């Protein structure tokens, strides 16, 4: 249930409404927008059935939220959310914003293979207009015999490169036991497709003060993706960015099938930013550019692209990685698509601000 308040509501009136709701064992969440302020109710709504909220001073309307996701739902927020990454005073560097007017592009290798290749990748991504670096430290591979990542050594390399290039970094966390170490070194924590419904991991990430990049599971519906986001948000962490990365279908010409329609559907259902991973969706480098263009045209707030200094010799996902030249070319061509979609390509700066609507 959400309560839409009058534009001129006072703090005391807001307090009284929230107390009335919380008296029944529910919690409230406030979203202040330019034009309206919304109080969201979290908990068993049947408890409020007999409470005359509509007649309380300051209340304009009381609406049921029929969706199973509440905090993630569009109705719960007064405006689309802008998630800022790297905005930590203790860590000087650039800030990347997802969900504003600017399209944010994350680039980097599938896995961190060494300090040199990571630094080169970060600089190439940054100089081409990317706003964040990706790099896997812990790799969930389908085969237990495949390269599993460099683990904590890679985390330190990521932190070093963040310091030297100013680029915020995102890396995957696979296990609740890794969260503290990853949060200490990275600016954003990624939940991989295979862990999208690892609910103990999601709940733990809800208690962390770092934004989360949540990738859609291989066989997960949009509703399941939003419920996974709800798990994180229910624990207090509201900074979640969703990522469509292709789903499993009967088609075998591509690694996965990019669900382009998921982007506008998600943008309609949720206030959270939505980005697309064209590398995993297509599975081959040639498809990265066309899928990126489609994503931007469909309304995506950003992209996460695999970039490697020498894709032919990459330890993982070489086939789908762009070379530095390939990434530069993609970024150059992307500008026109961003403009056609009424957006711009995000350049980072120390004071980057999202265009909060």
């Amino acid at each position, binding site marked *: 249930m959400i309560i839409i308040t009058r534009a001129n509501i006072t703090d005391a009136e807001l307090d009284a409404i*929230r107390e009335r709701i919380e008296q029944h064992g529910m919690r409230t969440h406030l979203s202040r927008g330019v034009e309206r302020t919304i109080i969201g109710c979290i908990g068993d709504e049947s408890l409020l059935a007999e409470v005359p909220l509509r007649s309380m001073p300051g209340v304009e309307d009381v609406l049921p939220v029929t969706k199973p996701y509440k905090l993630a739902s569009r109705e719960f927020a007064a405006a689309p959310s802008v998630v800022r990454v790297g905005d930590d005073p203790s860590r000087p560097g650039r800030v990347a914003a997802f969900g504003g007017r600017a399209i944010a592009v994350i680039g980097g290798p599938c896995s961190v293979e060494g300090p040199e290749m990571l630094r080169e990748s970060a600089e190439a991504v940054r100089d081409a207009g990317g706003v964040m670096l990706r790099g896997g430290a812990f790799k969930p591979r389908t085969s237990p015999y495949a390269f599993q990542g460099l683990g904590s050594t890679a985390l330190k390399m990521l932190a070093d490169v963040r310091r030297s290039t100013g680029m915020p970094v995102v890396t995957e966390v696979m296990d609740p036991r890794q969260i503290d170490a990853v949060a200490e070194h990275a600016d954003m924590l990624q939940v991989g497709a295979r862990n999208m419904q690892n609910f103990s991991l999601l709940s733990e990430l809800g208690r962390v003060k770092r934004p989360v990049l949540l990738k859609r599971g291989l066989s997960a519906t949009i509703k399941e993706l939003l419920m996974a986001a709800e798990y994180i948000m229910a624990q207090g962490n509201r900074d979640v960015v969703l990522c469509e990365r292709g789903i499993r279908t009967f088609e075998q010409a591509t690694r996965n099938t990019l669900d382009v329609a998921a982007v506008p559907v998600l943008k309609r259902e949720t206030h959270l930013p939505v980005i697309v991973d064209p590398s995993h969706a297509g599975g081959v480098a040639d498809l990265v550019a066309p899928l990126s263009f489609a994503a931007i045209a469909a309304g995506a707030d950003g992209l996460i692209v695999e970039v490697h200094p020498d894709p032919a010799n990459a330890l993982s996902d070489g086939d789908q990685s762009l070379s530095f030249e390939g990434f530069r070319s993609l970024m150059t061509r992307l500008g026109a698509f961003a403009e056609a979609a009424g957006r711009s390509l995000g350049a980072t700066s120390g004071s980057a601000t999202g265009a909060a609507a």
Partner: protein
Amino acid sequence: MTADHSAQAEAALQTLHRCRHEIESLDRELITLLARRVAVSKEIGVAKRGAGLPTLDPAREAEVIRRAAGMARDAGLNDEKVRDIFWHVIGLSRSVQVDE
């Protein structure tokens, strides 16, 4: 660096040192107050059982939160953050009442 500058830096470091010291003693007071709050909550738990009242009292909790939010605003603090903190404080007290 001129003599003026280094004197300024020295003064700033002294301020930093003094402020950190003050933070330490404030934290100590906060913990002491939390411990006292928990102890009083235990007493309330016993009294509730004695009076045949339920341990959980959402109406009372909502009242505590509302009062804290109002006091936070008056003190120039972010009332949303203080609300979050107080839900945790209430949780701390509630758990000792229930565990007893």
